[in-house]
């Protein structure tokens, strides 16, 4: 079973990546399971076309002993098994503990043994804010991690923070960094920035998702790009990315950047931004 996590800053496009590569792998004949580890619970929306009851919704209503697997796992586009961990309302409880509880319940109800997925993909909320959100990095739940980032300084800062979390677990031999995924949807679309960041981490950029109006169009219709525009160039990009990740054997222990190094990247972005602004003014 191939198991990996997709991490990244909030709103960076993790769920877009996860749902599309899940659809691509399913199209390739694989049994795929995706688990959204985010209280927002919207990862599977594009695969299923609606929100699904979360593991924690059912846990709250029925308790751990009365839950059934079919109440928390739903089949979406291409037969992809979708699970959402769910979580508490904002401002109460412990969302991190919720991720732990949800992943425990999924295993306890036999999701991996009964459904026998070939690929399991975890889509994890933004930064690794606490131990709960690091849960997919532990206990062999995932082989490696892919971090989605744009060129924006805060996205790179978050990606660097995630790498700090990964390094902690990589030191224990639990999980490694597989690579970065570049999302071109930012103020400056300059892949070299992320290439340079990846090189300093000691990692590779596994694929690039360019800015494309097809993605929001598909999402407005609650579909993956593979379903909405299967013959498009962007759909092929997701297919390539899915296969690249699935076949990736590189296991990297990242070397997170210092604040000074991050500042340098910020300066590079600033220069590019100024150049872009000057070009716009000239036009």
């Amino acid at each position, binding site marked *: 079973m191939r198991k990996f996590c997709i991490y990244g800053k909030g709103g960076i496009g993790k769920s877009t990546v996860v749902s599309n590569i899940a659809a691509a792998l399913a199209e390739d004949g694989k049994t795929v399971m995706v688990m959204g580890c985010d209280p927002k619970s919207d990862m599977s929306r594009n695969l299923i076309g609606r929100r699904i009851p979360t593991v*924690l919704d059912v*846990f709250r209503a029925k308790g751990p002993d009365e839950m059934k697997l079919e109440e928390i796992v739903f089949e979406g586009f291409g037969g992809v098994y979708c699970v959402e961990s769910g*979580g*508490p*309302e904002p401002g*109460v409880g*412990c969302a991190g*503990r*919720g991720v732990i*509880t949800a992943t425990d319940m999924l295993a306890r109800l036999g999701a991996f043994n009964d459904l026998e997925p070939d690929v399991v993909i975890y889509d994890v909320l933004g930064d690794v804010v606490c131990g709960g959100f690091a849960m997919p990095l532990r206990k062999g739940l995932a082989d490696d991690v892919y971090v989605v980032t744009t060129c924006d300084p805060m996205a790179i800062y978050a990606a660097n923070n995630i790498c700090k979390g990964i390094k902690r677990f990589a030191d224990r031999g639990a999980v490694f960094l597989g690579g970065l995924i570049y999302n071109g949807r930012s103020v400056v679309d300059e892949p070299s920035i992320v290439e340079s960041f990846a090189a300093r981490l000691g990692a590779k950029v596994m694929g690039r998702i360019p800015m494309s109006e097809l993605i929001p169009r598909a999402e407005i219709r609650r579909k993956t790009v593979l379903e909405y525009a299967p013959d498009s160039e962007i759909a092929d990009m997701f297919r390539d990315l899915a296969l690249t990740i699935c076949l990736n054997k590189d296991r990297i222990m990242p070397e997170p950047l210092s604040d000074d190094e991050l500042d340098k990247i910020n300066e590079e972005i600033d220069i590019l931004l100024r150049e872009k602004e000057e070009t716009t003014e000239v036009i």
Partner: protein
Amino acid sequence: MDGGKFFGAFRACSGIQDAVVLTHVPVGCNWGAAMFKSTSNQPDIRQACTVMHEREIVFGGEEALREALVRANRLYNTPLFVVITGDAPAIIGDDVEGVIDSVTLNKEVVCVDAAGFKGTMRKGYEEALVRLAQLMKERTVIKNSVNLIGFCPDEFKVDADVKELTRLLNNAGIKVNCVISKCSLDEFVNAPAAELNVVMGQGTELAEHMKKEFGVPYLEVDYPYGLEGTADFINAICEHLHAGVNEKKPDLEPFKRIYLYLHELYGTPVSVIGDSHAEHMARFLDSELGFDIEVLAGNEDDYFIFEQNVRNSNTTILFGSSFERNITSELRIPLVRFTYPVFDHVCVYDDAPYAGFRGAVCLTETILNAVMGFGDKFGGLTIKTEEG
């Protein structure tokens, strides 16, 4: 072995004997606190709990707390609820005071934040008493009266000790206004009427608070173990109150009856571990019974090091709590239980104290019996000598 802030707060608050303590914790914390408390006072169940489970940790425990408050309000006819929050709600950030404010109850509610990871049992005890002090009222001072501060309702021999110390102080013309924390809510509210606060090992922060808020001075004294210890205790209080020194002398007859045993035990190497009373116990054993103190440790000290030190010493009697059963069993030496928690002995007769003049007799008798009753187990003992 320190129980952490939650246990300290629980012990302080459950000492208000007509209050109900509502613990906002997972079931284990509640069970532990209840079990240690109920060994020698089984009908005294004035405890409710939100019983947090994983559901409450993930989604927050505020609803469970609200429900528990409403149910406990129906269940208990009591003038005071004390809500003590432990580790789990502190970690997830439950708005405990907000929930309490949102519920209409026909009684006083005091909220005590006592996450175990935030401090020691002593700190929990001190802070909880100061928190409860918001209930106290300014009162006209009663001449020659004292509050005894530092007690807990689940201490070994607490009923007998309080009875004995009250008897001794009454004999010296001193009234005990309030025993903190082993009193009614009414007595606690009226505690500022005392002329003097007598702090016995713990409760100093409450005494400081009462001095500042109500002008009640305080005196810190040793827990009165032994004849000298008791005389010093009474004399210090009398001196402070200008009540004259107590003329009544302790009865030495019981000691005369066993003087040969006491002579034989002179120089016995012993070790002591416990709460704030441990040091005072060690002083009694050393200065009055002539024992040699090998290891003296407090609950906040490293327990592993304590055990190692005891193993590496000549200790032949250990004074401590039920927690010391394993080490004394391993070393095949008697254990004299005198400090919290004692959960494998009961303490039913309240005329057999360890404190005061009568306590000196009972304690000496307990020590002798602990040694003599251990006779058959001494058979295989190898006595350590300096030559090895």
